């Protein structure tokens, strides 16, 4: 469904062709061609394309007025199939070369896809986003965007960020030593340098941030297509399009967002008749909002549909065998069942949704790829709101720095539920070696981080150590570490491909003193250990 960019591109072709063929006197040495049959044929073709341009304008207007565009697309298809306009592909190469003879020969009726020649399609793919984001003429957009931004490769940006990180570390060292310097000029310079360093750091971290606008604009099409397919009237409202998000987060956001919007239209909104019966306006409202909240970005998709009926969802889940029938649940708990894999409230499978692949995928994507969370807020009869809480960036993680022996490791704070200092009476041993912790009446298995990482050394009794309780949904467990050194934000660095490390290590980070430390994934580490049995400890030491 790329009619809009295709048609916008046609406009360009027309302009180029016009200057090339219709006004040949403007090009030196080509004046004599003005009256050739080729030029006349081109003139005819141009009138055909001019008509398409009118449709483009109509379509653009349509987009702004938001009236159903499926009919128009059909109209466009019909017009493309029309032999009168079939000759269009022949002009496409015109701006680059001067193939007047080929143009004069009658072109065979081209099928609709051939409307866009390959090079044009490539150019389209590149500039599609700019065009979609602005409904102004293309030329103007190109001119302004060139002035405002440049493209920089991500690897270059990463190198810059690496060096800025290093600058900050050295700056910290310098700042600490400032008091020992007696010369006021040096002292002043150091403090000045500190300010500039801070600003450079902030600026460079912001370089990865991209506004949400383009992603939101893309959703407009999703709404249009979905509502047309379902025969529902939908109005979409955006807010917070200027909110900025890390590019890597943004790249992963598109698919979940499409899912959520389709869900909102298909499952959330009623048909126009049902809406009218319920005393609501016939046209449903879907809102897409983005805003900052407590150091996170919130993306919200809400509809004013019938909301989630907890009872119905529960019944469905029992019917599908996802939960047992005798389980008692609160309304919110029942509503959250929609995140179970294989769940769908729709009885019949439609083209749009109801295939049981949906919210669980969204939840999974958001949690694993973006380290975010999904919240659900729904009132029967009033509507549903799905909220994504996303970190500002994937490049930085809040970490807890722990020590075992003389090694330091970083545990993402999102994986830490709490940390406790166990007393000897709370720790029990099971079958000789496994240790369990009695935490306020709940028994938790404990793993020694040193053992998980295959480290040898004298092991202290648990009462002299600290337990980090991992934040898992299923089986909670504790990790024994020597000490917790503190919490800090670290920039994640990918390890080289040469390290065939085992699971459980997600990357590395540079600590405040300039030394590298590994970032652990506790859950993976423990899963890996239990999968391997005891073998995990000896592996790789050879």
């Amino acid at each position, binding site marked *: 469904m790329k009619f809009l960019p295709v048609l916008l591109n046609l406009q360009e072709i027309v302009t180029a062709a016009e200057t090339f063929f219709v006004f040949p006197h403007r090009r030196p040495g080509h004046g004599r061609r003005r009256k050739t049959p080729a030029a006349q044929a081109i003139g005819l073709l141009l009138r055909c394309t001019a008509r398409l341009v009118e449709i483009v304008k109509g379509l653009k207007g349509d987009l702004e007025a938001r009236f159903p565009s499926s009919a128009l697309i059909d109209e466009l298809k019909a017009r493309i199939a029309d032999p009168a306009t079939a000759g269009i592909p022949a002009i496409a190469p015109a701006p680059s070369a001067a193939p007047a003879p080929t143009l004069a020969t009658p072109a065979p009726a081209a099928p609709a896809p051939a409307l866009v020649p390959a090079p044009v399609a490539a150019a389209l793919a590149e500039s599609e986003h700019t065009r979609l984001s602005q409904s102004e003429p293309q030329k103007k957009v190109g001119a302004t965007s060139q002035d405002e931004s440049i493209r920089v490769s991500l690897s270059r940006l990463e190198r810059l960020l690496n060096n800025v990180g290093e600058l900050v570390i050295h700056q910290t060292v310098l700042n600490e030593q400032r008091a020992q310097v007696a010369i006021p000029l040096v002292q002043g310079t150091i403090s000045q340098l500190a300010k500039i360093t801070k600003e450079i750091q902030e600026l460079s971290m912001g370089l990865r941030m991209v506004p949400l606008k383009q992603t939101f604009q893309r959703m407009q099409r999703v709404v249009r297509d979905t509502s047309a397919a379902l025969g529902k009237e939908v109005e979409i409202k955006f807010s917070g399009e200027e909110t900025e998000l890390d590019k890597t987060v943004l790249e992963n956001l598109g698919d979940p967002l499409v899912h959520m919007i389709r869900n909102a239209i298909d499952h959330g909104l009623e048909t126009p008749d049902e809406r009218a019966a319920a005393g609501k306006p016939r046209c449903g409202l879907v809102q897409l909002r983005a805003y900052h909240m407590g150091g996170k970005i919130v993306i919200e998709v809400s509809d004013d549909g019938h909301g989630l009926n907890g009872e119905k969802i529960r019944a469905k889940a029992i019917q599908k065998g996802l939960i047992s029938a005798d389980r008692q649940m609160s309304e919110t708990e029942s509503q959250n069942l929609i995140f179970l894999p294989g769940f769908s409230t729709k009885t019949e499978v439609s083209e749009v949704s109801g295939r049981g692949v949906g919210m669980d995928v969204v939840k999974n994507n958001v949690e694993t790829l973006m380290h975010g969370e999904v919240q659900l807020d729904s009132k029967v009869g009033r509507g549903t709101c799905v909220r994504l809480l996303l970190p500002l960036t994937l490049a930085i993680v809040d970490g807890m720095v722990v020590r075992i022996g003389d090694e*330091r490791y970083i545990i993402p704070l999102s994986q830490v539920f709490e940390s406790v200092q166990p007393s000897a009476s709370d720790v029990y041993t099971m079958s000789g070696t496994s240790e369990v912790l009695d935490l306020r009446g709940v028994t938790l298995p404990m793993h020694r981080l040193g053992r998980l*990482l295959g480290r040898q050394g004298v092991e202290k009794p648990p009462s002299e150590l600290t337990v980090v309780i991992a934040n898992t949904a299923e089986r909670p467990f504790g990790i024994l570490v020597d000490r917790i050194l503190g919490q800090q934000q670290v920039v994640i660095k*990918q390890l*080289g491909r*040469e390290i065939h*490390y085992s699971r459980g290590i997600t990357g590395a980070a540079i600590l405040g003193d*300039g*030394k590298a430390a590994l970032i652990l994934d506790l859950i993976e580490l423990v899963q890996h250990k239990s999968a391997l049995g005891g073998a995990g400890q000896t*592996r790789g030491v050879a």
Partner: protein
Amino acid sequence: MSSGIQNKHNNAGTKKYLCFSLGGESYAVPLLAVREVIAVPEITPVPHTPSHFLGIMNLRGQVISIIDLRTKFGLKAELTSRSAVIVCDLSPISLGIVVNSINAVLSISDQDIQPKPDIASNKNTAYITGVSKQGERLVLLLDLAKALDVEDLVAAREAQQAPQAKTA
């Protein structure tokens, strides 16, 4: 046998090599593969890695793996004040290699490079592309990518990840 050494004026086949010692032996790598030479930094060990894999280091914000070729070659590994790390660019990865000492940068003409002596018993010879006599010393030319099993390492890592991806 005696040819070549005097042909210093022939620049076409001359390349620069960084000469260093590992244990008691002299080795050389093409200078173009060397990114920089640094003092031995603080190294963070990585669990579940072979013993010649010393760990990771911070090179101006970039995390780079450090490998001790001496352990890999079965030579005695010790750190002294002359020890250094050569950071090499081995596409697709950058690696640091701990060496006993950095000796010199040599210009060696292709004609001065002789095929390696055929000693089947020595397991290291596969990494050696040739030898060159420099004065009193015999310099062994090292193929770093082969010595470090870059392909093996990358392949091993990918092979290890593939079943993980399935189970995940």
